[in-house]
């Protein structure tokens, strides 16, 4: 399995490819460079010198910076999947640039760099704060990074939806186009990177010592915390500069150091430098390919999205290498604290909670706004007009919310990871890919086709997840990481489609934002029925759910068929997610947050936990649905996105609470 792949060989191969492609691209124009000439040649030279060549330089600078950034992050966090993308560095930079574009364009006077760095630092800090509670264990760190990325993405989406006509630029920028018209941006970036080389060279030695393990590093006088802090700061700066110059270039920062680490380079400085070289060459080759292809097709293809599309499958491949790299780290995955205080609620309490929530839900159902915008409790004569629209959307949202919450509860127990949730399982990403395929290849006029392709997409994702979880070596967390890769792929493809500027892209965006408005009563009732039925089914697995978190060995000794029970529970969670997604969109965080809330209350019994998760999930979605249709009236906001805005901060709070306890 473990084959040594020398980065030097790989680089040579990439260099050869770059040379070939470069010759193809440049041969014609370069011939004219020294010919004294006609107007035509002079003109060709102008393009060559001021557009094509700076673009190639930009590629290499960005690729190198991202490669080095990834190498530093992977070294510091002892995590082969750490990278600017997976730690939400780029997502934060992108969101803050989007916010500034819309609300405070005057701030661009400070320079795009400052804004990008601010966003990158904030999002990375949040990720690391969450990861800290889990002792920076690789999988928890990546999951935290993904959650924050998704959150930033949700915020960007709502901005684009509400102000879409302005943000085409944000899309292009978000998917990383390398198009250049002068040397200035490349020179600016080069100077910034050159300055960063000074702290990098100072950090090289202490970073290299980390290879020997924390105890030894401390022994030779390395102050690990301080080195960590500076190194992460440096990596964030490198990525933020690139992001502010050309946008989000996906996966180079992950792939380059990961490929280097497959080789036999023992020393960190060598790994770091080769990551830079490999990153530069990989981005160069990709971009040359993009330039040649788009020249032929006449289509606009942002390079950053292409690297992400290529990179996500790579992430899947790298998963199989994950264990071999992590076992050397002393940092084990701290087991999920499942029984904090252990509270037992009897049936009366449960019924009271249920009745209370139902009453509030009915009040929310009646609350609305009149055509002139004034708040009102629905007047009787408007019933026949308004209720046929309001009842189904609320029922549908509630049903979907409880489905996701129960799915999240199951996933968190099966994987023993508190950051597990349906969103990160890849099932919703599959649904998005299905919907995107229909909208772009078949057309927009077929709502039935859209629904069908969504279900097909989800189930393909389920199959993939199952295929991975069937493999004997697969730990449950790996299933989540496969989901991460799928989500990244969906994200990249959607970005690629969006930057085409076609209105079907806007439709896809609307679909992704999760609109329960306009839901039919039939679909809503079906969702509720599915929620109740599958909640019942999950109760049948209560014993498994109670025992599995104790660990595979213990569970097996207690007579639980570990592999089979895990697979069955995963299928159940995936089916629940697939049913919920068309109703409220792929990202809500309800499935992540509801189980946390239940755990924080201190519910011990699995059956109570399942039921209460469903209630919390349903109620959160009802609240989101009410807010979505009223706060910006007459504008209706997408319920799914509003739910994620609601659940995100609560989630962060809960995770912080939990972190404090451990």
């Amino acid at each position, binding site marked *: 399995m473990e084959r040594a792949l020398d980065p030097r060989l790989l680089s040579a191969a990439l260099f050869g490819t770059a040379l070939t492609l470069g010759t193809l691209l440049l041969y014609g124009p370069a011939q004219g460079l020294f010919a004294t000439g006609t107007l035509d040649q002079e003109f060709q030279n102008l393009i060559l010198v001021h557009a094509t060549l700076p673009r190639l330089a930009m590629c290499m600078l960005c690729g190198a910076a991202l490669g080095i950034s990834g190498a530093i992050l992977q070294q510091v966090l002892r995590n082969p999947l750490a990278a600017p993308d997976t730690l939400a560095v780029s997502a934060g930079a992108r969101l803050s640039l989007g916010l500034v574009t819309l609300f405070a364009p005057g701030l661009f006077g400070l320079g795009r760099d400052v804004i990008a760095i601010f966003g990158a630092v904030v999002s990375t800090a949040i990720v690391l704060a969450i990861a800290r509670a889990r002792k920076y264990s690789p999988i928890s760190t990546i999951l935290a990074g993904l959650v924050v990325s998704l959150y930033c993405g949700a915020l960007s989406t709502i901005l684009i939806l509400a102000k879409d006509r302005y943000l085409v630029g944000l899309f292009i920028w978000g998917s990383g186009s390398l198009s250049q*018209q002068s040397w200035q941006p490349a020179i600016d970036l080069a100077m910034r990177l050159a300055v960063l080389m000074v702290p990098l060279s100072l950090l090289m030695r202490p970073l290299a010592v980390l290879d020997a393990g924390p105890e030894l590093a401390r022994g030779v006088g390395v102050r690990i915390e301080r080195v960590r802090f500076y190194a992460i700061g440096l990596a964030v700066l490198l990525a933020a500069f690139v992001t502010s110059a050309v946008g989000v270039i996906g996966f180079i920062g992950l792939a380059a150091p990961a490929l280097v680490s497959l080789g036999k380079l023992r020393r960190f400085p060598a790994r770091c430098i080769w990551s830079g070289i490999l990153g530069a060459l990989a981005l160069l080759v990709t971009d040359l390919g993009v330039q040649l292809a788009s020249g032929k097709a006449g289509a606009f293809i942002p390079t950053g999205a292409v690297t992400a599309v290529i990179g996500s499958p790579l992430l899947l491949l790298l998963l199989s290498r994950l264990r071999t790299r992590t076992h050397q780290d002393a940092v084990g995955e701290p087991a999920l604290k499942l029984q904090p205080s252990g509270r037992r609620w009897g049936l009366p309490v449960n019924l009271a909670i249920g009745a209370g929530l139902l009453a509030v839900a009915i009040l929310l159902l009646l609350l609305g706004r009149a055509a002139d915008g004034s708040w009102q409790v629905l007047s009787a004569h408007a019933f026949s007009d308004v209720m046929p629209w309001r009842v189904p959307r609320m029922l549908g949202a509630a049903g979907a919310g409880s489905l996701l919450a129960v799915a999240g509860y199951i996933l968190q127990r099966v994987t023993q990871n508190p950051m597990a949730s349906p969103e990160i399982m890849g099932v919703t990403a599959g649904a998005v890919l299905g919907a995107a395929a229909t909208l772009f290849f078949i057309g927009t006029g077929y709502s039935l086709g859209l629904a069908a392709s969504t279900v097909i997409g989800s189930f393909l994702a389920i199959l993939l997840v199952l295929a991975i979880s069937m493999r004997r070596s697969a730990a449950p967390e790996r299933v989540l990481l496969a989901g991460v890769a799928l989500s990244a792929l969906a994200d990249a493809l959607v970005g690629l489609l969006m930057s085409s500027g076609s209105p079907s892209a806007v439709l896809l965006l609307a679909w992704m934002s999760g609109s329960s408005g306009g839901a039919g009563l039939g679909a809503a009732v079906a969702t509720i029925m599915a929620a109740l039925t599958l909640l019942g089914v999950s109760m049948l697995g209560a014993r498994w759910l109670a025992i599995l978190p104790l660990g595979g060995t213990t569970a097996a000794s207690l007579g639980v068929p570990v592999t089979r029970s895990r697979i069955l529970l995963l299928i159940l969670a995936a089916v629940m997610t697939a049913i919920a997604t068309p109703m409220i969109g792929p990202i809500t965080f309800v499935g992540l947050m509801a189980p946390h809330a239940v755990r924080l209350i201190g519910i011990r019994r699995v059956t109570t936990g399942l039921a209460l998760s469903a209630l919390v999930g349903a109620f959160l979605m009802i609240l989101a649905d009410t807010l979505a249709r009223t706060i910006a009236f007459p504008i209706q906001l997408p319920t799914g996105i509003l739910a994620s805005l609601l659940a995100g901060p609560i989630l962060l709070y809960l995770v912080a609470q939990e972190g404090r306890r451990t």
Partner: protein
Amino acid sequence: MRCCPEAMTLQTRRTLLKAMGLAALTACSPAGADTSGQGGVLALDWALAETMIALGKTPAGIVAAEDWKRFVVDPELPRKTADLGLQQELNFELMAALRPDLILISPFLEHLKPKLDRIAPSANLSVYDPGEVPLGQRVNVTRKLAGLIGAVSAVDDYLLDLDALREDIAGRLSRLRQRPILMVSFIDDRHARIYAGSSLYADAMAWLGLKNAWRRPAGYFGFSTIGIEELATQEDVELIAVEPVQPDISRALAESPLWTRLPFVSAGHHGTIPPVFMFGALPSARRFADLVIAHLEERWG
């Protein structure tokens, strides 16, 4: 927001009971059956809305009314027209409460038809199918729309007026020395959209007899996204950018050696016109024609 639960408590018990009974009842009955409402036409596509207004009819509601002033500008939106929210996230409750007789949609909302049918019949009109002659499809749509909203008498006058405008502009253009035109809008400091094919700008240019300098294919909607370096041509063209052009874009262009040395840039053959709705119908074409001829007379006169 806080005041509402209080207001609610007063009526709660009565409305609650009604709610539970009626919600079940009304959910099953078709909402559009009651025709005692205000009636009127909802135009869920701006191109159709502006056409209605130009024909002297007031849409009962349109989408994203708040943005109309920035992107369509002229014709002005009648004050009585309701805002139905975002096009991607329609306010169905409000639409149902308005009890329209007809809903106008574009092919991009066709997938909503089953839902809209619960409110009122809908008509699907597309300005984007390629026409036989310049603006032909947009004229067809205007005629069809006039038939649907009872404005047949207005449509002939409107089209005659439009012909007169074209003849006037053709006369004014013949006195100018013409160049092919690159019609763009800038996306950011490195990218632009270029218009050709069935886009409103290109269609209106063809109608006026202006030559489009962009000859590459441009997709169903008649525009493509390009890096600004792809605008490079040595032809003597006139570049017209539709506003808004963000200040950092003009600054970046002024500093780009490639841009400044392009023949048409160094000759000063570039400028901007005020915003025109890029997915528009005849009223936008008209506005475009007026703005472009004024711009060109200033530049080429």
